[in-house]
């Protein structure tokens, strides 16, 4: 009996697609994607040690070093103290080791220790963008078992940031989606578009954001670029598409903003803290920053009670976009006390501590339940918008060579902002630099 031609064609197509899906995921690069994590294992992280079971970590003892960037909010210091109180009896104690403010420096400090196979950092408060790189280097313990047991507690987008190559390599601790802070005594209603915001800023005291040549600028730029409709990597993640008209438009917009005074020239040296300080001392009308600045702002004399937070406006001719930030707690593969580390992570990501982080320090929670808590809703009046922003935020490109990709972006964007290069030239350079990065051996 002959098979009808159409059915045969359909079967062949299905067979071809299966073939493509099965073989296409693997390349000698190990799986870069424009956004979202690689779902199937490509073998890149085979042989990674697994973290101990939570049950085995019950009676953990000894000391644990918790490495983190400078704790500008105060949350880590408080929770470390509480941890020590709670577990003093069983002989388990934790020490906080702070690295400098800059995220790049924090990464350098951790990477140096991992390259030296030093167990000095048992736990590291790792930025979400470092998961792929660290996991590919086999510097982290596999926490899949722990995560599987608690999967439903976490907001799904946060779990994505801690997964790579089909496994989980840490536990989400804090998430982040940026907001537009504005002075309520200077601005009546927040404008609907970025263009209008900048116009308003030029008339008033300006807008401050993270414009220094570092990761923060990649975030700020991508928020505008994605909103304008641009992308960084192609669908398959194998080449750069950053040199596009939409991205040029976004970059031109940012550069013009500095030229016509909407943003102060000094913004090209600002990271999160200098921008926050400028806003807090009353020198700016608008600020783009993470939620953590909310609590601190209400402790600052000059702006206390005089500011509010709004979700991002849209980009004229495009849409709205936010970048998912945040940190995960990862365990070093060279840790000498993985049980203690897991116990501390369990404590630090428990509902009580996450709620405390949110209610007292306005750090965006990673757990679904926290958003419904009354205290949290009071401290974060924008908590509903925050949850929505977090759920919808886009990830930055996932790649084991993400640091180089990001450097290509922020170095050139910064040059364009300080007027050293035109936006077109800057994105062209970024394009070729990203392609070299993707070709890294």
């Amino acid at each position, binding site marked *: 009996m002959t098979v009808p031609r159409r059915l045969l064609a359909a079967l062949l197509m299905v067979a071809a697609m299966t073939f493509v899906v099965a073989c296409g995921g693997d390349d000698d690069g190990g799986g870069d994607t424009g956004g979202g994590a690689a779902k199937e294992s490509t073998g890149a992280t085979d042989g990674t040690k697994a973290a101990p079971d939570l049950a085995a970590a019950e009676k953990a003892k000894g000391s644990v070093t918790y490495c983190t960037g400078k704790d500008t909010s105060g949350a880590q210091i408080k929770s470390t103290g509480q941890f020590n109180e709670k577990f003093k009896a069983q002989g388990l104690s934790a020490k906080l080791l702070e690295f400098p403010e800059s995220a790049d420096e924090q990464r*350098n400090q951790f990477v*140096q220790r991992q390259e030296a196979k030093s167990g000095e950092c048992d736990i590291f408060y790792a930025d979400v963008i470092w998961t792929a790189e660290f996991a590919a280097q086999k510097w982290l313990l596999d926490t899949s078992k722990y995560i599987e047991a608690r999967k439903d507690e976490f907001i799904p987008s946060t779990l994505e940031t801690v997964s790579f190559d089909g496994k989980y390599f840490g536990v989400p601790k804090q998430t982040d989606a940026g907001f537009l802070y504005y002075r309520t005594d200077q601005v009546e209603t927040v404008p609907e578009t970025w263009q209008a915001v900048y116009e308003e800023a030029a008339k008033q005291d300006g807008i401050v954001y993270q414009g220094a040549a570092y990761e923060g600028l990649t975030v700020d730029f991508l928020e505008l670029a994605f909103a304008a409709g641009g992308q960084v990597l192609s669908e398959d993640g194998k080449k750069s598409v950053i040199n596009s008209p939409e991205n040029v438009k976004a970059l031109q917009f940012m550069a013009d903003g500095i030229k016509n005074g909407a943003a102060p*020239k*000094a913004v090209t*040296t600002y990271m999160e803290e200098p921008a926050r300080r400028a806003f807090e001392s009353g020198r700016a009308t608008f600020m783009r920053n993470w939620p953590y600045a909310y609590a601190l702002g209400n402790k600052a004399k000059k702006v206390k009670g005089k500011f509010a937070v709004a979700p991002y406006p849209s980009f004229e001719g495009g849409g709205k976009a936010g970048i998912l930030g945040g940190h995960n707690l990862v365990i070093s593969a060279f840790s000498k006390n993985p049980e203690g580390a897991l116990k501390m992570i369990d404590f630090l990501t428990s509902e009580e501590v996450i709620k405390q982080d949110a209610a007292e320090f306005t750090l965006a929670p990673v757990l679904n339940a926290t958003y419904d808590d009354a205290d949290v809703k009071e401290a974060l009046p924008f908590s509903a918008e925050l949850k929505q922003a977090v759920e919808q935020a886009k990830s930055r490109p996932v790649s084991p060579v993400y640091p*180089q990709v990001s450097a290509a972006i922020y170095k050139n964007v910064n040059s364009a902002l*300080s007027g*050293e290069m035109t936006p077109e030239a800057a994105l062209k350079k970024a394009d070729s630099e990203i392609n070299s990065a993707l070709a*890294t*051996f």
Partner: protein
Amino acid sequence: MATPVATVGAKRARKGVSADKAERRLATRMVAPSMILIAIVGAYPIGYAVWLSLHEYSVRTPGLSRFAEPYGLGNFEAALRSDTFWSAFVNTGVFTVISVTLELLLGLAMALAMHNAFKGRGLLRTVVLVPWAILTVVTAITWQTIFEPQLGFVNTMLNAVGIPGGDTVWLGQSPHAMGVMIFADVWKTAPFMALLILAGLQVISNEVYDAAKVDGATTWQRFMRITLPLLIPAILVALIFRTLDALRIFDLPFVLTKGAYGTNTLSLEAYEELRANRLIGLGSALSVLTFVIVMAVSFLYIRFVGGNIRSLTDEGKA
């Protein structure tokens, strides 16, 4: 003197060859520890660096490496083709030339002042060593503070006095950051140059000047025809060491700007590739290139000042 040298010389002549041999053996043994240590801590790492520079080390997969095609020179090719290497090269060159020149001129001026001032000279000699004594890292932090855009001394003063430029982001813009770096380096080293030149000045005898005055030479002529030429040896030696230091500068740009805004230097670029980007092969190639450049410059100098070194190896005047 009971034992004239002649006797000793005679004794030596009698002992002759075996005494010489014994001396040579002792000399070798005394020099050996230093040479061995230098071989271990100096030569071996450089050799290893060259070895590393001939390979590519995978940034994606730990432990994977391969020979850098073609002929192991792949990293050097990449380095020599990269814009960042050449801009670092230019930055380092510009920094070296400008800062060494300024240090020389300023040092010369300070030395002349110190030489001719008799009141306050003692105080000056002590004061002048203070910049040199302060750690480079502390120097960098201090100047960073003084040039801070909003809270720094410079901008506050400019604003107070009404001179425009009081909102300049000194360490955040391209030519300005290099300017601050040069300024900080000159501050730290000009006094040191002044001391060296002062020592040279003090050796010039008065008679030469008196003779020139009698012949009717003006101050300027005395300076150009007598002082400067006699100072040249001291200046040259100071010049070579300062130049080599400037070519290798790392501490200052690392703390001030981390190499941003046009202050990327050769050493800093190599460091960035090695540590931040984890490109061991490329970073090592950059280190080797920096090393070669520094050595080339020092060889050039040694051709001019070589006499100085040779004289050190004579057994000394009897």
